[in-house]
């Protein structure tokens, strides 16, 4: 591996990945912990979300206010979120500030105070966020689409369920913390103006003696069905369509990815052209590749006025089916240059690269360099993509709608 990249797994199972970026003053950090919604206990969905909030309410020697004030005083731009597979903590700032913050992030994920008042507030906020979903039908649609497309527990709402959150207690959260905040399967990534020897030393110093117990594999159960309608008095009917495709580590991944670009890469993408530009059935229409470990999917969305939603659904489905017949050389050429430009531009943002190399390591056990991605894109041919599309007929489709009336499904 070239000297611009770093990858090292410590004895306790924690991995550090890094990328040095010329000309940058900043650095960014991403910390992934194996504490996403998929590993929430069966009857306690939302636990991961409450925990990711709770650990920030005081850690090490600092109480909640001292901790926040300290991280603010060194100017860290911060984020914390919970996905299906991970709890994610991120920060970005001038490089030396990010390195300075590492000790405190070790406090947060290893020595949080987990106070009762903080727990009550974190759970209350999680319940409030859940109550807000009904007010935003598009968000409601995406949550329902995931629940009906992905096998459980991957399809779980990361925000949890009301009944489960109401049963959650501080003691349960503390036990959950012991179980899931651990070095095994955790990844810390740093990108930007960094010195590898130094950051590796600092990470070892603050995380090297972290211990924990790895957990077993997750049992996957099929989703409840493939078609679902949620009744809602909304202005538009919100439509979600999902179907499986090859996973990110598959040899055919780039071919599958190009097909998604042809569908929805730019404004000349098929969905935008057919659903919006030609027929004006929507403002928003898109499809994207969704990657979970072991599962690749295509998720598509559109929203259309209630009386035109049927036409919009039919049009999107028609475009998904039409992929099976293949794409043109011109379409592929645009898809390739579009993806390549995105890849190169990602190299201008320390936050984007920190997130990307952490994701790479989780998916593949190694970092893809920007050059590797570029040459993989260059290597895709139209014959290759069309052979892939001929072999993989899009489907079976999961279709979920949110709106005042059900649509006719195929």
């Amino acid at each position: 591996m070239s000297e611009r990249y770093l990858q090292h797994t410590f004895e306790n199972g924690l991995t550090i990945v890094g990328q040095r970026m010329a000309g940058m003053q900043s650095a960014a950090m991403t910390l992934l912990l194996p504490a996403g919604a998929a590993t929430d206990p069966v009857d306690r969905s939302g636990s991961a979300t409450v925990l990711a909030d709770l650990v920030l309410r005081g850690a090490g020697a600092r109480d909640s206010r001292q901790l926040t004030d300290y991280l603010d005083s060194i100017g860290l731009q911060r984020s914390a979120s919970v996905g299906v597979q991970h709890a994610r903590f991120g920060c970005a700032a001038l490089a030396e500030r990010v390195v300075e913050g590492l000790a405190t992030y070790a406090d947060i994920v290893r020595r949080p105070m987990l106070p009762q008042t903080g727990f009550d507030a974190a759970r209350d906020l999680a319940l409030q966020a859940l109550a807000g979903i009904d007010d935003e039908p598009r968000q409601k649609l995406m949550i329902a689409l995931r629940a009906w497309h992905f096998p459980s527990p991957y399809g779980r709402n990361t925000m949890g369920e009301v009944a489960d959150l109401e049963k959650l207690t501080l003691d349960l959260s503390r036990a959950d913390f012991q179980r899931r905040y651990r070095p095994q399967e955790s990844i810390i990534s740093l990108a930007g103006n960094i010195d590898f020897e130094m950051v590796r030393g600092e990470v070892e110093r603050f995380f090297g003696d972290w211990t924990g117990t790895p957990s077993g594999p997750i049992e996957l159960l099929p989703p409840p069905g493939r078609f679902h309608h949620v009744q809602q008095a909304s202005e538009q009917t919100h439509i979600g369509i999902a179907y499986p495709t090859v996973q990110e580590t598959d040899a055919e991944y780039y071919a599958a990815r190009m097909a998604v670009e042809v569908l929805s890469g730019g404004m000349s993408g098929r969905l935008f052209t057919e659903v919006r530009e030609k027929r004006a059935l929507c403002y928003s229409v898109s499809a994207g590749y969704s990657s979970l470990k072991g599962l690749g999917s295509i998720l598509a969305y559109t929203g259309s006025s209630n009386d035109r939603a049927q036409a919009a659904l039919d049009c999107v489905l028609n475009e998904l089916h039409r992929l099976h017949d293949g794409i043109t050389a011109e379409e592929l050429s645009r898809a390739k240059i579009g993806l390549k430009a995105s890849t190169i531009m990602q190299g201008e943002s320390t936050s984007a690269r920190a997130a990307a190399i952490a994701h790479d390591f989780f998916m593949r056990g190694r970092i893809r360099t920007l050059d590797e991605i570029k040459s993989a894109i260059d290597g895709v041919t139209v014959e290759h993509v069309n052979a892939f599309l001929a072999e993989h007929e899009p489907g079976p489709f999961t279709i979920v709608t949110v709106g005042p009336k059900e649509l006719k499904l195929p």
Partner: protein
Amino acid sequence: MLSFHRAQLPNGLDIVAEENPDSHSTALGLFVMTGSRDESPKINGVSHFLEHMMFKGSSKYTWEDVNRIFDEIGAKYNAFTSQEMTAYYANVLPEFSERAMEHLSHLLRPAIRVSDFTTEKNVILEEIAMYLDDPGHRLYEKLMELHFGNHPLSMSVLGSAESIRQLQRDEMADYFRQRYGPGNMVLAATGRLAFDQVVKLAEKYCGSWPHVDAPRHQPAPLYKPQRSDLFDAKLNRQYLMGMTPGPSAQDERRFAARVLADVIGDSDGSRFYWALVDNAIAEDADFGFYPHDGCGSFYLAITAGPDRIEQAQKIALGELEKVKTDLKDDEIERAKNKLASSLVLQGEVPLGRMRSIGSQWIYNKEYRSLEQDMATLMSVNRESLQKLMVDFPFAPMTVVSLGPGSQGGAPEA
């Protein structure tokens, strides 16, 4: 090292550029000083609708050409319209700068064909419907309308379904001729570029655009304390927003205003955070600064359960009074350090710098380097914030709310 350059074409088009040899890409943006505040009520929504029509082709290109050509060069491109500015931009690999420039120039000379106009009208109506499913947006529109009253900033960016249905193609063409003169625009370029080349391309592709005078009315807003509650039984949550005068986009005090807004209502670690969100009285409580052309606003936005909104509002307004008397140096330093980080991070990405330089030029005809912005930010102190709150004492304030708890309120029109 970064270097700044500027030039002006004979037709009045300003060109500003910040060259960064470390960048991997080039960002180009055409910023036009026009938006919904420059519309009459009869054609409300035309600025935004016109922005859509720019992508429908020129005399030389069809809409399919426009989309295809941008995608052929791998451009990340888009446009946005606000109450007072419309911008078109593309971020490309350096080797595609010329094609991007040529293409942007075609974008801004639209054919506005009747058939495209008729089709796109339905897309705009879909966009309006989409935002009606977003309570935050509904409330924001109501807030602007009420707060600015007869001032043109009260005009909705999207317009109403009614104004869009009535709009005629020729009314849009007239609006375009009156507003899209080169003297009312700036071309901003950032990232890896050669300035001489940018000027040559601008001359080649935009040099023939006719000059037009596009004055903007600047009436003084008439603010008054007011409140409006909109009732919607469909909603679960109660949404509340407030707006009160602040410095304008031209005002030196805008830097202090940004720091003050973060001290009071940044999403984390601010006074609103500790008083409202940390204890879960509200799910969200933000205080922000929104500078406009010739005037400006501070705003607050709170989301809470209908049973807690009154308490939340009382606490928020209490904090706005308290901060006038007990402002601390260390909270100001923290807010400044966070803002400094965001300046650095934004400055490393060409698209971020392009937006900053373009809008700065549109409002002030001034270039500010990252170092200048940083120095001004760092010079903000307790005295400047205290003086700011004497000049802008968070009054009068317009307050609007939306949700199931506004029983006494009127159903939203």
